[in-house]
């Protein structure tokens, strides 16, 4: 019995983020955020671990850049995510696509111990006209992304980022306004049902990586 290793890329996946060493500007962001971190030892450590994962995704060339991070109370991270973003269609040009979104990520201590509504984690700070069945439209100060009927207690932020990417690129979105989970923008849901040929907006995976695999032969 021998074992071989097939590797097409050595970039780590979401499960190996803890092994990624932060360096340069990314490490500076981590250190700066840690200057004010309050709460119980466990909650402080959890905030650091979640932020570290997000920064590790940036470090390995994932499609995000952390713009700001605040560990002082609730965990708040502002990231720029690069991907095609659907914007409200106009009469002249139809559907418009942005090339990035600025997202506010909010993670409370409560989210570590109780399941939370899918609308309580991701806010779209820019652009302000995202055209998506699961993104709110209306008078709120920012658009909200719904990740589903319930997000389990302690759900990691790296997976929230993955879900956000899949949702905004329309790889995985909920279009059925009769579903009990509902949609946040019925008009957009119906528009996308009529324009299903445009789906998805991207086939690029969140992390372009094939992990080293040991294949026993």
């Amino acid at each position: 019995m021998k074992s071989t290793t097939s590797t097409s890329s050595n970039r780590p996946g979401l499960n190996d983020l803890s092994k990624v060493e932060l360096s340069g500007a990314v490490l500076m962001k981590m250190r700066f955020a840690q200057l004010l971190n309050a709460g119980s030892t466990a909650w402080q450590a959890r905030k650091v671990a979640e932020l570290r994962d997000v920064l590790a995704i940036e470090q390995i060339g994932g499609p995000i850049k952390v713009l700001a991070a605040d560990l002082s109370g609730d965990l708040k991270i502002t990231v720029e995510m690069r991907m095609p973003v659907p914007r409200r269609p106009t009469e002249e040009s139809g559907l418009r696509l942005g090339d990035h979104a600025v997202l506010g990520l909010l993670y409370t201590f409560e989210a570590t111990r109780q399941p939370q509504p899918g609308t309580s984690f991701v806010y779209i700070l820019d652009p302000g006209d995202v055209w998506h069945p699961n993104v709110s439209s209306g008078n709120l100060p920012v658009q909200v992304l719904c990740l589903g009927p319930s997000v389990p207690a302690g759900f990691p932020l790296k997976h929230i980022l993955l879900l956000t990417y899949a949702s905004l690129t329309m790889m995985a979105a909920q279009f059925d306004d009769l579903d009990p989970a509902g949609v946040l923008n019925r008009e957009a849901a119906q528009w996308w049902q009529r324009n299903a040929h445009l789906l998805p907006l991207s086939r690029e995976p969140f992390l372009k990586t094939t992990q080293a695999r040991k294949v026993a032969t």
Partner: protein
Amino acid sequence: MKSFAQSGRKRTRRRAAANPRPARTARFPRLVGTCADAAAALARLRVAIVGCGSVGGRVALHLARCGVRGLVLIDPKKYRPVSLLTHECYTETIGQNKADVMATVCRSICPDLEVRVYVKPVQDLLLSDLVEADVVVMATDNLPAEVDTGQRCIWLGKPLVHAALHGETLTASVRFFLNSDGQGPCPACLFGPQEWRDHDANLRRYSCDGTAHDPCLEGTGVVPTRSLSFLCAMSADLATNQVIRHALGLGRSVGDTMVEYNGYTHRTVVVPLGRNSNCPCEHVQYRVVRSTRQISDLTMRELVEMAGANHKSRDLLLQIPNMRWIDQMTCKCGAVTVVRHFQPYGDLCTKKCQTCKRIVVAGPMDASGAVATAAFDSVLDVPIRRLGARAMSQATLRDANRAWLIVPAHREARQ
């Protein structure tokens, strides 16, 4: 929350005049191993009951008859026709809330009893709602409620009596979690993989519009416990026995033990309960601090000093229920507007930008439910009500290793 003391009192008194009420201690036995004033000790006892169904409802009746001082009854559910088979209820009460009905019955047994009723899931209570209870009894088949109640009892250091049964094997069991220092076992410590699967299946879900759905309340959760009425009563009897033993110090300590009776073998076993180091609950105890002044009248400095915490500590985190702190807002023009104010969740916070004169609305990223007290540096000596938190029944403080719950010294009965 409902307090129905007023509604029933007049009628009950009139009836009481016609039929003289027995003295509370008329049937109280001289319990072996207790001092003479055991009844007086019970008359000081306040018990919260989470789940007032076939088991919890009977515990409430027992305790009312034992002459305890007060009961806090918590149950969001109503009696259904099928409840007639296992509950202490009658056709007239079908469709009524279980906690409400039990409160009425308990008050008719003992008009002096202080009763608070919460017609909502235990998960929706404030931590301070259980602070006056000496013991918490839990009798629910809703696993998320069990985990949540266990967590609250650890935080508050409240003994928790968990009554359960297994209908198929005629087994009634009662676990007693002492919670003396936060380091002992809790219900979640004892969960196995199957319990966690059932727990997850019964978690609250939400629609996009924010409406919450509780599978256990809507009858879409796991199959309800099947049992015979007498087994529910047996579980309630055992649970009440443990409450009384603990309150009066009867026999060996019942703390952190499980007693189990089996109807097939008539065997009773008592086993110790152990802490699970992988338990996801937070095994930390809050220090309860009672403020003789309204909490909102305190300044932030007074609040922190009353708790014995250090406001200069960079670890210290404050939380006020249903309030979020807005430190500042950033306008689209880039100008920063200082706010430094609490805002109730759901309320819009708007300010005029001093640079471009546009109206700026605070977004979720401008607000924080938990605030590092370092953020209050410039407003340390301003009363909290002037910072926007006018009506507050509790505040919590956390630093790296300690936790405090600040409550008013005298809680008034609220409607």
